[in-house]
């Protein structure tokens, strides 16, 4: 009898399903449990008071990222960081320290250190866990109680999500990146389209993307509600692990892992519950105008007028326009800005920094703009510095920071001043996210850099 066809997700899922509960939910085994310090105090206080043993400390790591001050010269500490240190010692858990060579944002560290591997399952108490789906790793964001559940059982309890395929076709134009594709996709499908789904991205556009770009795409999938997202690993993925020397030296284990990896794609006759296709060759640079990541326009367009917005979304649009200090039908081009943030697990990788730095070409950050660059990891920072990118940024008037989450979540206190307008490469433009009444416009690193240099929102292609 021939095996029934499976999606990539189902292949990994089936291998990791430990059992099924009466209610139909699965117990799914977690190969890698990567925690960040923001959740440590509550979760570990509860866990240690339960007196339950930690099942697999050898499959667990803690990364310090959310609360780390990134401004150079500040003491790298917080109460969360101190507590993470204490519990890591108490339980014998690997800790990625604030001043270590491996330090960075948890999802970036997971990729760089090989915690995330193709065909593995990974859980992280953060909604952007699926960033590493770009490497073919099946990853789930979880809450604090779930984190505790994994500490005790090395499993999560989860309903099997429905299967969605998003086929992205065509080559991206010059000046367009994965962030533009992601924003355009969210605009097209809406913030709820992924709810209850595991999404696989495929298509020629995805094949052409670098791994860094794929991480941006997968990173943004929670912003349209996906439970997780994944991309079938190809040669670029294997090259990543070889280049970073992350593969086991045990020859027979490596052989069996390679055999497993060769199966990691959806069968050609696998069934998806839903398929979307998008022509990415038509996409131009995107930017958000509102307070959710679906309120997006192409830079060449104006904000829609209210009668162009679907009725159920109109109330939200009116509120968003009011918060953002904008009007229906207005063009964003020429809108003066106060701040630029280049960073976050969405866009702080070496490709992003190279693209941004090379756009500068001797220009200066506008005098009224405060612009910061926060590399995603210490490794990215070292790489950037070895290429002289830090000099390009600093001499143009950008602040060059240490790695961390910084202004994306603001949990380290790095936020904009009340009411400021900020162009940000992070993934959320919610009200007050980057500081009270701060108006956030999400965009690519290129668009954010262009805005910093011009002091206003502009089309990056005018600066080429």
């Amino acid at each position: 009898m021939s095996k029934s066809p499976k999606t990539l997700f189902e292949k990994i899922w089936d291998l990791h399903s430990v059992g099924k509960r009466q209610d139909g939910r699965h117990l799914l085994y977690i190969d890698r449990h990567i925690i960040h310090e923001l959740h440590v105090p509550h979760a570990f206080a509860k866990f240690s008071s339960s007196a339950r043993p930690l099942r697999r400390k050898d499959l667990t790591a803690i990364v310090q990222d959310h609360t780390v001050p990134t401004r150079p010269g500040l003491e790298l500490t917080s109460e969360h960081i101190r507590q993470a240190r204490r519990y890591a010692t108490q339980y014998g858990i690997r800790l990625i320290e604030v001043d270590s060579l491996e330090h960075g944002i948890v999802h970036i560290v997971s990729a760089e250190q090989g915690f995330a591997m193709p065909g593995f399952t990974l859980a992280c108490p953060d909604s952007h866990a699926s960033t590493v789906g770009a490497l073919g790793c099946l990853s789930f964001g979880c809450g604090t109680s779930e984190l505790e559940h994994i500490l005790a059982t090395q499993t999560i309890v989860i309903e099997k999500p429905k299967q969605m395929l998003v086929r992205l076709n065509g080559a991206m134009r010059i000046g367009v990146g994965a962030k533009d594709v992601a924003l355009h996709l969210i605009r097209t499908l809406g913030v709820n389209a992924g709810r209850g789904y595991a999404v696989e991205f495929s298509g020629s556009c995805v094949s052409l993307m670098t791994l860094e770009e794929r991480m941006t795409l997968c990173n943004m999938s929670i912003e349209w509600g996906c439970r997780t997202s994944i991309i079938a690993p190809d040669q670029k993925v294997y090259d990543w692990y070889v280049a970073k020397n992350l593969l086991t030296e045990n020859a027979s284990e490596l052989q069996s892992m390679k055999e497993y990896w060769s199966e990691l794609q959806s069968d050609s006759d696998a069934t998806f519950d839903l398929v979307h296709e998008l022509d990415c060759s038509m996409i131009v640079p995107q930017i958000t105008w509102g307070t959710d990541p679906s309120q997006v326009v192409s830079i060449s367009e104006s904000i829609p007028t209210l009668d162009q917005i679907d009725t159920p979304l109109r109330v939200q649009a009116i509120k968003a326009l009011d918060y953002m200090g904008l009007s229906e039908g207005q063009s964003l081009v020429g809108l003066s800005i106060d701040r630029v943030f280049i960073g976050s697990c969405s866009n702080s990788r070496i490709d992003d920094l190279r693209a941004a730095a090379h756009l500068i070409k001797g220009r200066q950050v506008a005098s009224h703009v405060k612009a910061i660059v926060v590399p995603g990891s210490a490794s990215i920072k070292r790489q950037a510095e070895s290429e002289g990118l830090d000099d390009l940024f600093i001499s143009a008037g950008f602040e060059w920071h240490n790695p961390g989450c910084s202004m994306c979540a603001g949990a380290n206190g790095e936020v904009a001043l009340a009411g400021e307008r900020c162009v940000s490469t992070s993934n959320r433009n919610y009200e007050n996210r980057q500081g009270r009444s701060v108006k956030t416009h999400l965009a690519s690193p290129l668009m954010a850099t262009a805005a910093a240099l011009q002091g206003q929102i502009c089309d990056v292609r005018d600066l080429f």
Partner: protein
Amino acid sequence: MKKFNTLTSVVASILDNDLNTDQIIPSVYLKDVNADLGFGLFAYLRRTPDGQSISDFVLEKPEFARSKILLVGDNFGCGSSREHAVWALQEFGFDCLIGLSFADLFMENCYKNGILPITLSSNDHHGLYKYICSDAVPVSISVDLEGCVITDANEIEICRFHIPQTQRMMLLEGLDDIGLTLKDESLINNWEKEALHKHSFFQSPIHPL
């Protein structure tokens, strides 16, 4: 975890769709491990930047200060997976949320912390909203988890609701999810043994012991 029985309370309502967890609990309240999350709940909707109460906002009205039931709109709790959002609602005093829909992770976090999230059809949701607005003073409703029914102050049924069997049982009995899973610990042991045999790399340590 405390057991969830029948809950009777006035209903506060915040009906905006897509209220995200950043709005429910702004990240500034996450910085301090000892922060009063009940105070931080909807902080920016409740207070002006200089800390003045916005008296129009429902949670600032004295008649709703002890409400245990919150009526919300569609896609409540979207965005960041921070469980602090659920704790903040709980610390304020809410034990039950009733809405058109909830974000996946948020809803799971509710169950895990003993909050009952009820999803209603738009008809039932509208009916309930009409009832709570039917008097100038806030009226009480009762949520009966055993019978999966919502009744009005005169114990007349407003609507019924559905909740998955396991979650219902766990809430009713105040059962902890970890305890439930550990009943199946042999399955986990077996999985690990088999993985070592067939896919040993899944079990290779991050951190050599």
